[in-house]
């Protein structure tokens, strides 16, 4: 590093060491608005997961960046030139900066009203442009999504593969179902259950199929939107494709896609799309309240709790409708955990953390499992495939710990908690199949074999 520094040219007078062209003037001002009250430190899941190492504190990161800005743009920098910053220090700062799930609880509690999430994302972009990010595997997102239109290396022609034979997709309808890549490729049970529930409720819907492109959430959250402009291209494509179908509503069951459609699409394309963005929980809650849902099955007096996905709750303000749904599921007693709604504890998957820093994602998810254990929940439900996956992993890790370290399970030692998405529970209690196409095909093959034998 020292040698590198020697060979690096002096920054000419007036030229800053860290540029800021990607950071909106309001976000820049936000760095100076922090009162250093420390409230965000009490809530940050990343700081908790890092055992309080203050390098990961939101307040500390804000102070560090403000300091860099001061050295680059302050009075001294104006008079004597921008001060050379230590590259190792900047890299250390950037690493800490990417250890954040962009959950936004620091924004909710911030006494200065700082919109941290957007500010972090813009700053991440600046750091990426400078060569100080992103973190780990997340660097592949723009290439994958740019090339394949999804992050899972699948061909667009495979977009329809998840649809089982019993699911009816309309040619024309007022509603479109935007499944997203995760429900379409990776956790197909969510797509299958959503489609079956909509069919069951007589809500005709269209599906873009090969024309559905990734929402690009992962690229935006990790500060890489400038790489090929993918979020803008995919937003424009998806919005235009949906508008061309003449739909009035676009239905989402994935919190990440819903957040992008609600907040990022209008920003990317510079206008609001000509359709309403709806989460499937909104529709279900409405139908439940109108008494239009009939349940065919019931749980056996189990306790259920709900984890607000940050992308659905804190980012978009949808808190009540999933609760209405879960509270009305037969045979379940709904209880609230600690830290819910605006003050929810993130599961730790967002902001590229699951892909880039899986250990930290797991540690944060384990904390969420402990919150659910504290209220003796049998089922921990959410409305987001990423929460489902990561909290599920957290559950496995906590129960592994029980075996190895005798972790205190708060009087609930044998209760292996079920982590399940709301839509799967709904489908199950409506008496619908929750099997995905490949499982059904497998079963068919087995039956066939049995018949032969």
């Amino acid at each position, binding site marked *: 590093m020292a040698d590198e520094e020697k060979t690096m040219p002096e920054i000419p007078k007036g030229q800053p060491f860290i540029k800021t062209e990607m950071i909106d003037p309001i976000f820049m001002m936000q760095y*100076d608005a922090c009162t*250093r009250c*420390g409230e965000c430190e009490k809530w940050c899941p990343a700081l908790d997961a890092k055992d309080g190492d203050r390098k990961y504190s939101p307040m500390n990161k804000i102070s560090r960046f403000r300091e860099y800005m001061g050295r680059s743009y302050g009075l001294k920098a104006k008079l004597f030139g921008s001060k050379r910053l230590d590259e190792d220090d900047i890299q250390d700062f950037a690493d800490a900066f990417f250890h954040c799930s962009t959950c936004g609880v620091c924004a909710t509690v911030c006494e*200065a009203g700082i919109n941290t999430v957007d500010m972090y994302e813009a700053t991440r972009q600046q750091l990426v442009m400078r060569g100080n990010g992103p973190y780990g595997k997340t660097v592949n997102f723009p290439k994958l999504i740019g090339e394949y239109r999804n992050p899972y290396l699948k061909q667009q022609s495979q977009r329809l593969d998840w649809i089982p034979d019993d699911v009816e997709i309309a040619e024309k309808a007022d509603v479109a179902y935007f499944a997203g890549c995760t429900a379409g490729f990776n956790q197909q049970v969510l797509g299958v259950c959503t489609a079956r529930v909509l069919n069951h409720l007589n809500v005709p819907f269209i599906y873009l199929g090969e024309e559905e492109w990734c929402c690009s959430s992962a690229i935006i959250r990790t500060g890489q939107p400038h790489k090929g402009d993918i979020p803008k291209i995919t937003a424009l494509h998806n919005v235009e494709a949906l508008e061309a179908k003449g739909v009035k509503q676009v239905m989402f069951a994935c919190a990440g896609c819903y957040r992008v459609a609600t907040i990022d699409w209008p920003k990317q394309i510079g206008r609001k799309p000509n359709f309403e963005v709806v989460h499937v929980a909104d529709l279900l809650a409405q139908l439940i309240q109108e008494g239009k849902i009939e349940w065919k099955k019931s749980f056996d007096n189990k306790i259920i709790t709900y984890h607000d996905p940050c992308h659905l709750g804190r980012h978009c303000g*949808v808190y009540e409708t999933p609760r209405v749904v879960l509270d009305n599921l037969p045979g379940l007693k709904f209880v609230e955990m600690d830290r819910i709604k605006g003050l929810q504890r993130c599961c730790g998957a967002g902001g590229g953390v699951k892909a880039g820093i899986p250990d930290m994602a797991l540690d944060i998810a384990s904390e969420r499992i402990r919150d659910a254990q504290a209220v003796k929940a049998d089922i921990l439900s959410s409305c987001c495939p990423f929460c489902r996956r990561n909290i599920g992993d957290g559950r496995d890790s906590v129960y592994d710990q029980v075996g190895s370290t005798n972790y205190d399970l708060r009087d609930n030692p044998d209760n292996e908690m079920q982590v399940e998405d709301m839509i799967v529970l709904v489908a199950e209690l409506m008496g619908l199949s929750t099997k995905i196409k490949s499982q059904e095909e497998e079963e068919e093959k087995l039956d066939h074999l049995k018949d032969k034998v």
Partner: protein
Amino acid sequence: MSDFVYYSGIPSFVVMLGIAMVAIVIFLVGMYLNMKKWGNGSASHFLSVFLKKINHEKYGHHPRQSLLSTIFLDIMLQRRILRRSPFRWVMHMLIFIGWIGMFVLSMVFAMFEMLHLVGIGNIDLNVTRNSLDFANEILGYMLLIGLIIAIVRRLAISDVSKRTQMFDWVLVLGTLVITITGFMAEGFRPDAITGAWTFLGANIELAQAFALFHVTISLLFCIAYIPYSKYMHMLAAPMVILVNGGGE
């Protein structure tokens, strides 16, 4: 004691005016540099974005609240702090009201002094000052109590003391010095009619020295220093709350 020697508590109003001018110029230069920094090299770009965003549409289900609610509830009553910690809110409000209140009263008195100097109206400055004494005293104590709470909090609460930096101390201790010298200047004043600090005893020289010191560092620390320090949050935070419609 002639009127001219002892108006605002310093020997010459002109001296104070000169220091005020310097402080304001330093402040404006600092603000310009900050706005330039925020606006990616252009202060006017920052200003135009700022003005545009005050009423921009918020996407998502958080509707933008009215501008009046933001100004009254979130900026003046600092509701966001109250939600998180009533204790911290009391501390903040004491400092905020004390600081702003005394600033406003100082401006009012300075205006009377100017009117008196140019001979408009028949103003008796001693009477005017004495009539403001009580309010000044109350506001001064609010500020002092708020600062003492802030200091004790930073020393006694381990979480807070761990994250406290020099940066934070400069602000708190600087304001404390200003507050105490203000009380001392008042206490030494021979014609002070109220105030617990009269125990210091009348001493016109000391009163004038403390008053000059108090006014000078008040202007330099509380105005000129703002854009170059943590004090900046006093302006930036309300501006942020304004554009973010009260915050998330």
